[in-house]
């Protein structure tokens, strides 16, 4: 499947319009090294085009994050038990990368706000393809081949270390992409943002700062600690106890935007723009290490796999509607869990989208809803982690079949928040109601729906029901405050 933006990626100029010349004299040394911009699509202004590119970048980051999450959740089973410590570490590394992709996604939204664009957490359903990613996006269990794709996609342009060149060689034996990597879209964005003529200063709206996501809200400690006092230089390695650095950058100016973009791009997909080698390992480095370890084991045991038998692109819905490349979950109980997962994913994405409408310094009546929403956004991430952990232990179809289910990460039909705000909260009451129906059905002893689930399944559902009751009370109270409760209850 291709995306709606694809036709604008390499436009052919019409006879009446010539490509807009790029401004000169505003480029930094790094920007001068970047490839030239292709012609601007004639349907768009440069600002509009930049917004579109940022939407594509957001979609790519979102897609990568979910792919990595799925790969991490897939780990387990007999093969993983054989190399337990190592595979557990892989899981942590992959989840760390996913967490950093989340930071990228949030930072891209901040830039969208800065230039007056709408935030976007939209993406296509799996499987899909993008002009800026060499492979199809798909959810799949971690395998040597999928790892090779991750390594390839995150590979810097100019490798020099022998170990990296060897990895490149090994990866190329397994996969070859025929399209650019994610880094290229950041090249275009950086080029464009850096050009004062195409994107004039007036584009940048410092007022958006108060709406942007902050490290304080999002970071959760996932970055190096402060250097010890009297550190001789800030280049001294920081205490990287978390082995991660989630980037959440606010920006009010072009300069800050460029710095944030370089940071985001350099962390993963565009090694050549990294500010310093003293930063954390790049995503390429981290995936390459896992790839090499995996390859060593595979050289001794060709059938070894660290993953459970989870499907590619699990699909919660009638099998006949499953797109090509998707795998329908046919066990009824597993399908209920998958639907539960999709509901909570929708809650997460809708709250993410809406949060950017509430400034941090708004009157108490609304900024506290940002606090409540933030807590719930992270809470939904934990719910997804929980339900995914159950799904990969449930049958895909027949309970005797070793094939397991997996978290489908299916997109809702829309992420456009209903307005006014009361309707947004009504939607969440609806989603809590849908959750309650599934939870009650799963817990109903008469239906025996938990027969294939681990004891964890029941323990979790009881807690979820309890937590959702509190969430419902909270929302109902908010609706009272909006003088909208009567209509809700009706």
């Amino acid at each position, binding site marked *: 499947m291709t995306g709606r933006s694809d036709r604008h990626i390499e436009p052919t100029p019409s006879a009446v319009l010539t490509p807009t010349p790029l401004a000169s004299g505003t480029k930094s040394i790094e920007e001068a090294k970047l490839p030239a911009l292709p012609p601007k699509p004639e349907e768009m202004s440069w600002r509009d085009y930049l917004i579109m590119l940022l939407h594509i970048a957001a979609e790519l980051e979102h897609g990568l994050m979910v792919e990595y999450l799925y790969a991490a959740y897939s*780990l387990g*089973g007999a093969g*993983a*038990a054989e190399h*337990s*410590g190592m595979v*557990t570490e892989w*899981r942590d590394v992959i*989840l760390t990368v996913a967490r950093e992709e989340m930071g990228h996604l949030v930072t891209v939204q901040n830039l969208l706000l800065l230039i007056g664009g709408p935030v976007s957490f939209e993406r296509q359903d799996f499987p899909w393809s993008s002009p800026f990613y060499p492979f199809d996006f798909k959810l799949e269990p971690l395998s040597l081949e999928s790892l090779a794709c991750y390594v390839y996609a995150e590979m810097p342009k100019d490798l020099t270390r022998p170990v990296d060149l060897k990895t490149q060689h090994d990866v190329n034996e397994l996969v070859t992409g025929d399209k650019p990597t994610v880094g290229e879209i950041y090249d275009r964005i950086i080029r464009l943002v850096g050009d004062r003529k195409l994107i004039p200063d007036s584009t940048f709206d410092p007022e958006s700062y108060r709406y942007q996501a*902050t490290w*304080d809200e999002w970071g*959760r*400690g996932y*970055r*190096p*600690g*402060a*250097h*010890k*006092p009297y*550190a001789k230089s*800030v280049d001294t390695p920081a205490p990287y*106890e*978390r082995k991660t650095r989630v980037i959440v950058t606010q920006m009010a100016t072009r300069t800050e935007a460029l710095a944030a973009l370089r940071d985001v791009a350099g962390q993963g997909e565009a090694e050549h723009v990294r500010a310093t080698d003293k930063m954390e390992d790049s995503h390429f480095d981290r995936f390459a290490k896992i790839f090499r370890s995996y390859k060593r084991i595979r050289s001794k045991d060709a059938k070894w796999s660290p993953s459970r038998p989870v499907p590619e692109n699990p699909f919660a819905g009638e099998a006949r509607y499953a797109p090509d490349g998707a795998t329908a979950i046919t066990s009824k109980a597993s399908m209920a869990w998958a639907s539960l997962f999709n509901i909570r994913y929708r809650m997460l994405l809708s709250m993410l989208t809406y949060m950017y409408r509430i400034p*941090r310094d708004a009157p*108490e*009546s*609304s900024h*506290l809803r940002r*606090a*409540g929403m933030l*807590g*719930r956004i*992270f*809470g*939904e991430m*934990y*719910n997804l*982690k*929980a339900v995914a*952990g*159950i799904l990969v232990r449930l049958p895909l179809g027949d309970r005797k079949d070793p094939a397991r289910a997996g978290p489908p990460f299916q997109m809702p039909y829309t992420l456009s928040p209903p307005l006014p705000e009361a309707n947004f909260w009504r939607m969440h009451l609806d989603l809590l109601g849908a959750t309650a129906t599934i939870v009650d059905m799963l817990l109903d002893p008469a239906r025996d729906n938990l027969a294939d689930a*681990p*004891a*964890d*399944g*029941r*323990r*979790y559902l*009881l*807690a979820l029901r*309890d*937590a959702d009751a*509190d969430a419902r*009370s*909270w929302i109902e*109270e*908010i609706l*009272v*405050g909006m003088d909208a409760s009567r209509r809700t209850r009706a």
Partner: protein
Amino acid sequence: MTIRELRILPPFAIGRLGSADRPLDNFSITSEQNQPLGYRRIVPGETLHVDEATGEINGRSVPASIEFKTAEGRIRPVAPFIELWARIDDAADFVPLTTDLLAKHGAKPSDVVWNVTVANRKVERRTGHAGDRVDATTGTFSDHAPRTLDGHSPHFLSRTHTIDFGSVRYIKPNAAHPEIRLRFMPAKGLIYGPKLTEQEIEEMREADPSVTNLFVVPEKQAVYDKTKGWWKFSIPPEVRNADPYFTTFYNETQPPALFAIIPPGPCWLNDNVAVSRGYLDDACDGTVEVSLTPKGGKTLKAVGRIVAAPPALVPDSLFVRTLADDLDQVIFGPAISPDEPDEVTRARAEDIVRRAFETVRFLNVAVMNGNPVNGRDPLDIDTMPAEEAFDVYRPMRPIFAPHSADTLAIMALHQRVYSAMRAGAAPWFPSLLRKPQEVADFTDGGRRKMPALMCGADGNYLALTHRQIRTMYKAAGRPLDIPDSDITLEPDVDPSRLIPRNASAAHPARRAAEMHFVAQGNPVSSRPVTSIGNCTPGLEVDFRAVWRRVFEGIVLREYDNLVMEVEHTKYKHLVGHRLLKVEYDRPSVRGAPERKSFVTMTTQIGPNPYDTATQSVVLSFQASPNGIAPMEWSNMLAFMLHDRAGETVTCFFSADDEQLGMTGWDETEQHIEMELQVRQFFEGDTGVISRTLAQPGELTQGLCSPWQNDYRECSCYYWASARPDFINVEAAPSGRSVGDNWLQKERTGEYVPDDYADSRLVLYDDLFNEWEKWLRFAIEGKDAAGEAGE
């Protein structure tokens, strides 16, 4: 058949004060299976009824519900039973000692000889006068009459003037209840003090006209001779101001003062002037000793400890770090055995997170975060960030982004974490837990570690025990597939059930089983699991005091590693010097022992204004040029105690007297090096905290005098689920959490920020006059029935 050993079980029993005649019935708390995020359910238990006349148990029943406070407003005291158990012949296990068992050994109940000794040394700890110690002992007894614990001090007006510390009674065994047991009935929670003239009382009233209900010590409680030093005792304000030019050493407590002062209070908002009202309380701690000489056998002895503490006012919640956590760390060591089954580690990890949200929900997170309240300066409100600002002489900063701090939001987040863990997700956040050596990291990154917003025993931010932290790390690193399990830890679960039963673990397992022993008829609030741990100073006990004599030969001040006394003249030169570093050889699995060391002082660091995220600075100020701060001992000593108890370690002391200054370890400086022996924490193989480490009265000597004062002064960030801040919490239409300050008199749903002069709040003299009225029980996060206030 021979009785080989005796045991008093539990070895540490907590009585709780109250003036009701009838003690609190037995109850436990348990999780609601269908509401795992809710409050723990209070489950009435089988209650033993003691016949006042005979001292026998004349019945037992399970009450329909638990009445914590009588209709007349009197709190029912917790009066724990203490059972005597025996080990027969070569049996591994102990069994209850009964009349039958005694008879089989040619003994009768009257051959069991008890002796109970308790003390209150709070005043002695402040004044430094041994004459201010209040001691009580029953002497030996074997009959079944109540034995009063009449506390007396040489500084009382006469020999007949005493403090009633309650009583003990050897329960008379009978056919239905043949077990040998003793019951401790703690006191009523009265305040004692000096006998003053009307004029002296009037002068106190005049000191602060806003105090309209000044507590006057009743005649029968006016026992203290006002000329003996406690009345109007004070330490110069310069000490509390850390005035670098003040050159006289005072053995101040930490926090300072910690006693009822002549108004206005508190001292830190009133030029640090703290002049004592001369109050004492009837809390105490001590030992129960028992001996038995079976016919033809040698005399057998056992000992246990008792403590009288304030009531557990939030009986359905447990604190995130309890005394049980600290004791378990001593018993099992700070590390987690790799043999511990993953499902057990997981259950313990879940339990910690559960207790975390049980703690958070009693904090007004927005206020405790340091946010302004209704436009008021947050520095005026007693919170941990305010405390930090005062301590390091820096402007106050909220801990988290102010707009993100809200009780229900943060609690919901904790609950989702707990839910995910119940689903089998391994903890993903151990690196966000504050490590014990990071407690004085006041950078934003440091302050936001968990547990947040709360204070530990060293006055810095609270850390969990090493053992709790390592539990979380082990749970995080567990294999991806673990056996399916359904364990929810409850306070009544015998911990030995959760401990691997291999040979090496058997010994600590038994000790833990003793420590957490559930005696028949005892409510859960009599056990260490309901006692807050790691606090400054604490509530039930000041656990810091237990470490003062851990190095044989020296006695340290309970909070800053300063040598105060020595046990032998050969150590005399150490008095006034500070223990800075300890080194020892630790057995290594690889063969050759490895040299371990730890320092006792840390450096307070804060954000560097140049770049607050990545750089830090030492938070020095005139009186603390190196920004040095002590670290609490329970964690600091944990590895040494585990590795070297009973053996020697190398201690390094400051070369200079440090009574007036404070330095940290600097290897370029000269030090005094001494080999000192590390004492055993427990007596023999029992669960009894060594009497050498802490004598009667010492486990409570650091607590406030009277303890009621502490409920006014120590805000909830020390002990949220024991002394709540925020109750009756619900969502407001704005989405904000609203509720009452636990200490506000009238419940309005509008939180009244802490203010020592706001008459809407319970103030010092309200507590001194009517503490049983104003300390209100909270059940399910709300005022218990009949507790709504004015």
